[in-house]
Structures are given as C-alpha cells and as structure tokens.
C-alpha cells in the first residue's frame, strides 16, 4: 500500500504542473497589475515602468513562470503586496487557522449527522424519521451566508454568547491553556454553522444506505442466525452503511476548504478563505496564485485520502 501511496503522490506532480501553468496564464490575463491600487493617475509613468522592470513583470512569460515555479519549490511564493510580507508564511499562518476550523467543523458535522442519519434509517417512516428529513431539507434549503448571518446576529450580537470575529483574543499568550480554550471558543460558532449546512448530505446518504442495507441478503442471513436485532444493526447494517460515509471524509475536507471562504469572511475568521477573498479584491497576485495552487493540491490530497480510507475500511478494495 505504501508503494501505491508514493506512486499516487508522483502522479500528482504532472497534475500540479498543469494546474500551475493554468494559474499562471490566468494571472497574466487578469486586468491591471499589483501596482494599480498603489499608484495614482499622477504617478510618473517612468516610475511605474521602473517598478515593473524591478519586479520582473516585463520579462517574457516563460521566464516569469520559471522563476515562480523555481521559487515555489523553495517555499518562496513571493511577497504579498498588500501585507508587505512573505506570501508563504502568511498563508501558512492562515492555513493553520483554517485547519483547526475545518477539523472542528468535520467533528461537529459527524457528531450531528451520524446519529440523525442512523436514527432516520433505523426507524424509517416513523415520526422521528420524518422530523429528521424535515430538518435536513430545511438545512439544505438555507443558503450558507443566510444561516451564517443569522447565527452571527443571534448568538454573536443579540445573545452575546460567542465572539463575532477573530480567531483568538490578543490578551492570551500562545501555547497557554487559556489561549487554546479561547481559540476553540472562537471556532465554535463558525464551525457549527458550517457543520449544520453539511449535515444534509451525510444524513440523507446514511439514511438511504441503512434502508437499503436492511433489505440485503446478508442481513437476512444475520437474522437467520437468531442474534438480537440490535446486534444485526450494529454489526451488519451500520457497519456496511457507514462505509461510504467514511470514504467521503476526504472529499468532505476538501469541500470544507472551499466552503470556508464564505464562513471565514462572514465570521471575520483569519483563515485561508478570508485571505483568498481579500487578496482577490486587492489583486495580490503572489498570494492568489499560491492559494489556488494550495487549494488544488489539497483537492488532490482529499481524493487520495478518500481512497486510502476506503481501502482501510473495505476489505474488497485494495488500492493498486
């Protein structure tokens, strides 16, 4: 299996290469350049030209591309024009925040969705099942930003239970217990919002898997052994129904990264998503290109992760 994983990583290289070319070319076609915001119509054109020359923006594209890739390999993504600091370390900092937010979201998502999906499937057609279905439709119908704004307004401002922006209060020293608790405190509201929106798919999927599994031949065989029904559920029906959900985790994480763009922006949470939006607005090329590369890489990683999880939980699948 290790061999396969290494090979999958190697296959990623050409994929990332193509992605980087596309990103680079698109960045070239983007209107304006990083100085557009920093200069005024009165600025001397010679001065602009000088800046462009100095930053290598007048070189042929393949030279610029070569330089960019070469640097990227050393973790150098250039300077952020807006933040006036190295894009790599800036993104790294934000990525850590996003990682914790995503992790919290995934945990809350599954803690909510698995019991609901299991109950709905187990007591299929009951009142409970209908209530869960209703919930999942409602949560599906609400757009992300509406729910986020509602939560922010209600729990953040009206009730004042949760902070309304940021990832940690400055009064705490990094590494202390208070610091960690404060971080978690900041994450809870955006993570719950995100989790609720993600529950629909998991609940519906799990529910239909369970209803489907109930009618399977192997469940009939299990019943024919005369074992208690709760064991038939736990050992046979749930085990088999959770399988596709487990495989889904990789993609869920990738999806969360994309979704975090809205959540982070609305909750003022300093993560990758928020950085992405702000760098697009300020045409911060080096940050945009680096972030798109990173998102692309994470998407590939997510699908690999799904395959690995699948091969661990399902004995029929061996990744070759």
């Amino acid at each position, binding site marked *: 299996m290790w061999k396969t994983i290494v090979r999958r990583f190697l296959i990623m290289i050409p994929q990332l290469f193509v992605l980087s070319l596309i990103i680079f070319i698109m960045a070239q076609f983007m209107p304006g350049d990083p100085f557009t915001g920093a200069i005024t119509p009165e600025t001397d054109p010679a001065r602009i030209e000088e800046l462009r020359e100095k930053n290598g923006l007048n070189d042929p594209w393949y030279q610029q591309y070569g330089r960019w890739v070469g640097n990227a390999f050393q973790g150098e993504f250039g300077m952020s024009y807006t933040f006036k600091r190295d894009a790599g370390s800036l993104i790294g900092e934000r990525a850590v925040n996003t990682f914790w937010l995503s992790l919290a979201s995934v945990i809350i998502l599954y803690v909510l969705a698995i019991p609901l999906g299991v109950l709905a499937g187990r007591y299929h057609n009951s009142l409970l099942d209908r209530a869960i279905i209703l919930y999942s439709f409602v949560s599906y119908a609400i757009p992300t930003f509406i729910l986020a704004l509602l939560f922010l307004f209600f729990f953040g401002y009206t009730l004042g239970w949760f902070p309304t922006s940021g990832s940690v209060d400055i009064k705490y020293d990094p590494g202390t217990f208070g610091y960690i608790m404060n971080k978690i405190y900041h994450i809870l509201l955006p993570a719950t919002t995100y989790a609720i929106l993600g529950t629909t798919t998991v609940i519906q999927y799990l529910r239909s898997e369970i209803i489907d599994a109930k009618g*399977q*031949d*192997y469940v*009939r*065989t*299990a*019943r*024919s*052994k*005369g*074992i*208690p*029904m709760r*064991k038939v559920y736990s*050992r*046979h029906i749930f*085990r*088999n129904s959770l*399988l596709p959900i487990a495989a889904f985790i990789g993609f869920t994480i990738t999806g969360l990264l994309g979704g975090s763009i809205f959540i982070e922006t609305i909750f003022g949470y300093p993560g990758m998503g928020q950085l992405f939006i702000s760098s697009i607005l300020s045409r911060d090329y080096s940050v945009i290109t680096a972030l798109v590369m990173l998102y692309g890489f994470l998407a590939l990683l997510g699908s690999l992760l799904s395959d690995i999880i699948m091969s661990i*939980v*399902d*004995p*029929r699948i061996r990744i070759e």
Partner: protein
Amino acid sequence: MRTSEELLKIRDLHTGFRIGDAYFDAVDGVSLTLRENEILAIVGESGCGKSTLATSIIGLHDHNKTRVQGEILYKDKNLAKMTEDDFNDIRGLEIGMIFQDPLSALNPLMRIGEQIEEGLIYHTDFNKEKRQARVLELLNQVGIPNPERVARQFPHQLSGGMRQRVIIAIAISCKPKIIIADEPTTALDVTIQAQILDLLIDLQKETGAGIILITHDLGVVAEVADRVAVMYAGQIIELASVEELFANPKHPYTRSLFNSIPQMNSENEKLNVIEGIVPSLMKLPRHGCRFAPRISWVPESAHETEPQLHEISEGHFVRCSCHEHFYFKGEKEDKHHELYANQ
C-alpha cells in the same frame, strides 16, 4: 423412506403481504409435515410462494408488512404466532437456513470465521477458544480445504461454491433439527451443484435433521428428496413420495413440470396446453380453482368449486379430481375414456 418422528407440522398456513391497505396471501392454506431424517422437496415455478413459505417457517419476513396466519407447530409452539425476540431462541439454534445466492448472502465486511461464530455466541456457552475450534470443525465438515486460512478471509476471496459451503456451515453451526434450503444450488455451476447436494445429503445422514429443500429443478428432487410437495400459486397441488410422484404424477400442473403435455379426450390436440403464466399476487383468483384459467379447454363441469386435496393412494395427495379427466400420450386411453364418459 425412513419413517420417523414428526418435527414440524404446518396447518392451513396463510402468509400475506400488505400491498396498499390489503393483504394478499402468497402462501394460501398450506398444510405440510416434516419428519426427522427426511428431505422434503418443495417444487414449483418461480413466484408460486416457495420462499414465502420458507421465510414464514423461520420468521424472517418483515413483520410490518407481512401477516402470518395458521399454525406452524414445532415442539408444541406455534411459530406463526411467535414474537421476533422469542424467535431468536429458535432461529439458528433449532432451525437453520441456507439461501439461494451465496454471493450476496454473506456480509462483505466480515471475516468468514466471524460470521460463522456469530450464532455460537448467542446459542452456546462456549468461550472464544471453543467457538473458534468449532468454526474450524464446521469449515472442515462442509469440505473447505485449509480452514484456518479461510476463517480469516473475506467473502470476496472465495468462489461461489465455497461461499455456499460457508453458508451451510453457518446454518448447521448449532446443529439445528430443521434445515431449510431455499434453492441452494440455483446460482451455482452444474458440477458445484452436485457437490453441494452431496454435502446436504451427507449432513442429513450425520445429523438426522429434517431438511426442506426448495427448488424448481426436478432433477435435484429426483436425486435427493424423499417426499415432494408441488406448489402452484400459493397452494400445494400435489404431494407424494418421490418414487410415487415420478412414477405417477397426477395433477396436470405436475405433469406440465415433467414436460409431458396433458391431453383430453378431445379431437383438437392443439388446444390442450397449459396457457399463460402464474398470475401475479394481486391477480390470483381467490375463489374456485386458481389453475382453471390456464386450462380453458377443460369443460366447466369438470372443475370443482373449491378443489381440495384428495388422498388417492397412501401418502399421495392431489388437489381436485381433475386428473381423472386427463390421459397422457402413451397411456392406456380406454380407461380415461371410460372415466370421462361417467362424468
């Protein structure tokens, strides 16, 4: 036939499925007896209610959508009225079941050994070690080479024939008195079929269990069964020992299973065929004979209004007396002419 004690007595069993608001009986008034040491075959076209009968005996139907009426007497208990929980003391322990499709009947995520062991956990007081020894013993008994390895394997690593052996091992793990085999060889190659049937016969000789063997294959019946019940549209239409049934099939439906075309004393031979197919559950005629529409060339006067099983010789039951109106190619025609003339 080895005569011995009666194990299971089914009396006027009706099993109906709820479709919309009404129940439709797929098993409609079946009475049968299973004895120790015998293989009772149940034959009939697909859709005639064989599997429904089997699942009623072992209580494997969906209780919300199925209605079981009548008696299935086992050790003075009526299984037809038993709750799901009580049934768990009988299923697996007293009655084992073998299923048609070995490819889907095993849990794909569970090791073979674990699946065989499951029943032992609830029906024996064996400790883990003893249970595992029993698993290996069972795998050995059903003719699986290298039991230690197979016990650790997953279903997809085994062939269809091997999986069916595993299912048989599960069914016999607690030495049940009754084994129900629902088309156990239908999904297998011919050579494997023969091996599985041999295995069933061997097991029966060893354990003395009563086996209900469901099949639509008369070849299988001839090979292994002691007695045969022929089912049509939820009812038993003929019941006899295997020798008697093959030598002397009476009901036109049984005859049609043997591929011999029943004929009447009529000039027009072409009309004398069994028409159509088994009607669907909702369209079954609930009064009168449900077979009559398929032999429209038989005159009205020949039908009984509510045809009953008649014992025409010892142990040989035929529904209705219609068989008296048929003769078959190569049989003495005079006798039948006479019978028909008396009508």
